């Protein structure tokens, strides 16, 4: 069995090295390709109603997709972990019923950015555990093929490279797509991706110059991201400064809203509430935010995180210390959404810098 896997791995690597599996398609044919996918799969792609705010939505036709975009305003985590999701419904006196998955049909998300693709592997660590597997998340996750679209034009607020990730990171993708100006380059990353590419009609073999151009674009994109974060010993530093007064300063401009956590692709905290109208009810889970006072408020009135200071500390610690302690990775992918949308223009990279600079 092991040898078999090794051989497979070797074969894949060789094929990729040889560029044999890489495909391209002319830009004017991409809508057709998406039509083909939308026909066989439940297809999600970046769309925009007003031409400015981009959001990942279900599309029926390829032309609905807006593939030249910076990134979606809301993180695509909502496709796996919706803002509100019914856990079960019930009627008075009756038993609970769990909603059936909306469709058995496989889903494809086309155009996920590398940072958001990476965020899914972080969410997996929380939801796809051996002891208590989350059925709602894992069902959708297992049912979805991901086409990651390389990020040729990182924004000034992006900082994925500062976290050791990058605008051309392939981790988590089934197929990695690069925009080559006049065409798209497709690189299968997983077996699923490879098989799927074989199905798609109209793909051409990638030429040597396509592959080298993609490499050039990758270099250019990486160079655009200039934010640096000192990650060495950050975790230890955070351990040391837990009780320091610096948190009083850090939190003071925070307004205590949930923008950063709701738009964050890695924030996974949720609340479970019951909603009932007359005899019918349901238990739903909804996104929650550690920035809200009610997040940890107990019925007795006691709150272990009573002020903005503790709550801000929780958010930073969770991402850069607790998550690292538990799962060995930082729970931030550098997408910059919190930074772009914070009403007080709070910059998480500056917060980390401030912490790192503490004596």
């Amino acid at each position: 069995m092991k040898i078999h896997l090794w051989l497979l791995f070797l074969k894949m690597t060789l094929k990729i090295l040889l560029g044999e599996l890489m495909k391209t398609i002319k830009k004017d044919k991409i809508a057709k390709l998406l039509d083909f996918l939308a026909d066989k799969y439940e297809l999600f792609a970046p769309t925009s109603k007003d031409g400015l705010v981009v959001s990942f939505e279900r599309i029926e036709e390829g032309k609905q997709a807006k593939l030249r975009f910076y990134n979606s305003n809301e993180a695509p985590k909502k496709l796996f972990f919706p803002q509100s999701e019914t856990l079960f419904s019930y009627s008075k006196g009756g038993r609970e019923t769990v909603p059936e998955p909306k469709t058995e049909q496989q889903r494809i998300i086309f155009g996920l950015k590398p940072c958001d693709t990476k965020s899914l592997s972080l969410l997996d660590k929380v939801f796809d555990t051996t002891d208590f597997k989350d059925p709602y998340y894992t069902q959708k996750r297992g049912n979805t093929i991901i086409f990651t679209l390389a990020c040729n034009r990182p924004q000034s607020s992006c900082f994925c490279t500062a976290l050791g990730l990058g605008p051309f990171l392939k981790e988590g993708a089934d197929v990695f797509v690069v925009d080559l100006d006049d065409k798209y380059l497709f690189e299968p990353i997983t077996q699923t991706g490879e098989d799927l590419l074989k199905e798609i009609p109209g793909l051409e073999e990638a030429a040597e110059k396509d592959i080298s151009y993609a490499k050039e674009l990758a270099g250019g994109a990486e160079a655009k991201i200039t934010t640096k974060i000192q990650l060495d010993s950050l975790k230890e530093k955070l351990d040391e400064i837990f009780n320091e007064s610096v948190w009083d300063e850090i939190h003071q401009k925070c307004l205590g809203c949930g923008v950063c956590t709701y738009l964050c692709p890695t924030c996974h905290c949720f609340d479970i509430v019951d909603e009932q109208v007359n005899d019918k009810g349901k238990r739903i889970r909804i996104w929650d935010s550690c920035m809200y006072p009610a997040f940890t408020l107990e019925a007795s009135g006691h709150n272990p995180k009573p002020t903005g200071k503790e709550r801000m500390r929780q958010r930073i610690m969770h991402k850069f210390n607790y998550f690292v302690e538990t799962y060995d990775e930082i729970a931030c992918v550098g997408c910059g959404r919190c930074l772009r949308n914070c009403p007080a223009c709070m910059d998480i990279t500056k917060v980390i810098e401030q912490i790192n600079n503490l004596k």
Partner: protein
Amino acid sequence: MDKKAGNWEPKILAFLCSWCSYAGADLAGVSRLQYPTNIRIIKVPCSGRINPVFIVKALQVGWDGVLVSGCHPGDCHYLSGNYYARRRFTILNRLLEYAGIEQGRVHFAWISAGEGKKFAKTVGEVTEVIEKLGPATRLVKAELGNGKKK
């Protein structure tokens, strides 16, 4: 109540001040005045007690109409409760209409303890208006399970 079926009857929630309007309703009762049975009453100490959130909530959970009633201006048991309430209702009434809640879902009336007849007449009129409007749909929380989700 099946709203689609032809035998739909409006459900109307009334907030009545305990000193005047509730007593007015009582008088209507002891005077054996006829008025529609679509109304359910919540007694409140004063019209000034009625938080606008009560009315929004009533519409949200599916009442087809709301009637709010208190003492006539100048007659408030607490001297000025209804004056304050009147300003609040003015703004609420305008805002609800502006936001697209049909005119006629929410009614206001001054009814004194002696106005049993007025109470019966008001309930009759309110019921008629709401019957004409039909079942409430706007702002109503959708049937659970097939929710009007985002």
